[in-house]
């Protein structure tokens, strides 16, 4: 094979690989298409409740995204279920409890302030308070040292 032919083959192989890489998420998404289409209802109050609740829940497949933000089939079907449960008369708290009962508190993006979870809520506040206290102590020490040095310099000047 000539040099030109070899280069062309290499470029073709690389282009094919690049195309496959780019298409992989789309192909995977197609394989995991949800079986139930998400039909939003013409009820702004209900849809707002669905959005609020879905944004509090963690998508089980994506984990870093909320059920509201995730484009995955599982998240879409969870939104359908939330909508159905709210339409059937359940309160948002009851729907949330349904998911917590099955997935545990892990499903909540914001953990409840109870038991060991308090560390998540209190630790940042304590660290901030500790940091401010450290800054305060350091600043006070600097001021005291500055005043002492000034007093010392004043004494030396007077002596001169």
């Amino acid at each position, binding site marked *: 094979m000539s040099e030109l032919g070899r280069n062309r083959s290499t470029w073709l192989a690389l282009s094919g690989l690049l195309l496959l890489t780019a298409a992989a998420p789309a192909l995977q998404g197609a394989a995991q298409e949800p079986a139930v289409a998400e039909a939003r209802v013409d009820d702004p109050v209900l849809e707002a409740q669905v959005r609020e609740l879905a944004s509090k829940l963690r998508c089980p497949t994506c984990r870093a995204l909320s059920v509201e933000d995730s484009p995955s089939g599982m998240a879409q079907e969870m939104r359908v279920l939330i909508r159905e449960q709210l339409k059937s008369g359940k309160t948002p708290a009851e729907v949330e409890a349904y998911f917590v009962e099955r*997935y545990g508190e892990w499903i909540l993006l914001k953990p409840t302030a109870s038991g060991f979870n308090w560390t998540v809520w209190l630790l940042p506040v304590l660290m901030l308070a500790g940091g401010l206290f450290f800054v305060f102590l350091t600043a006070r020490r600097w001021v005291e040292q500055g005043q002492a040095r000034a007093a010392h310099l004043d004494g030396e000047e007077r002596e001169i």
Partner: protein
Amino acid sequence: MSWKKLLIPALAIPIVALLAYGLTRDPNIVESPLPGRPAFEFSSQTLDGEDLGLSDLKGKVVVLNFWASWCVACIDEHRVFIEAERYYADREFQMLGVVYQDEAPNARRWMERMGGDWPSLVDPASRIAIDYGVYGVPETYFIGKDGLIAHKQIGPVNSMLMKQLVDSLLAAPVTGEPSATSSAAGTEAGGS
């Protein structure tokens, strides 16, 4: 030693301990609240078009496996289920699959290719999966003869775990009537 010198280690040690605890844990292992609780009732159609529910399997040890044809890890554990199906053929044991986020024809082809005679249910709106708090596939639930969920396995099941759990569940005495809680999600899935 002054209190100021003690302050830094007093603050740092609990924070480092907390970080060490967090960093040494596998983030993929999420503790499920379901083991020890009654299995949720569900019914759907099998890939062969027959109606089947969990209540039809009362009094049996049920290994409920969520799987998909696109799931690579499901291939690894499938031979374990085939072995178990043969090994426990004369016992009160039932393998039951639930197809997760997949098309029925793909799942049917996969089962034909991989083998295994146990039923697999379609789960069109993932209601069974959501009811069982499934994060992804493969996930397997070991349900005792009493209808209680004994164990949830996230990831592939190996032969040792399978034998250990199923043997202990088969040997466990049944104290009362098998029970299953009805599903709040209404897991009555339709056909494929």
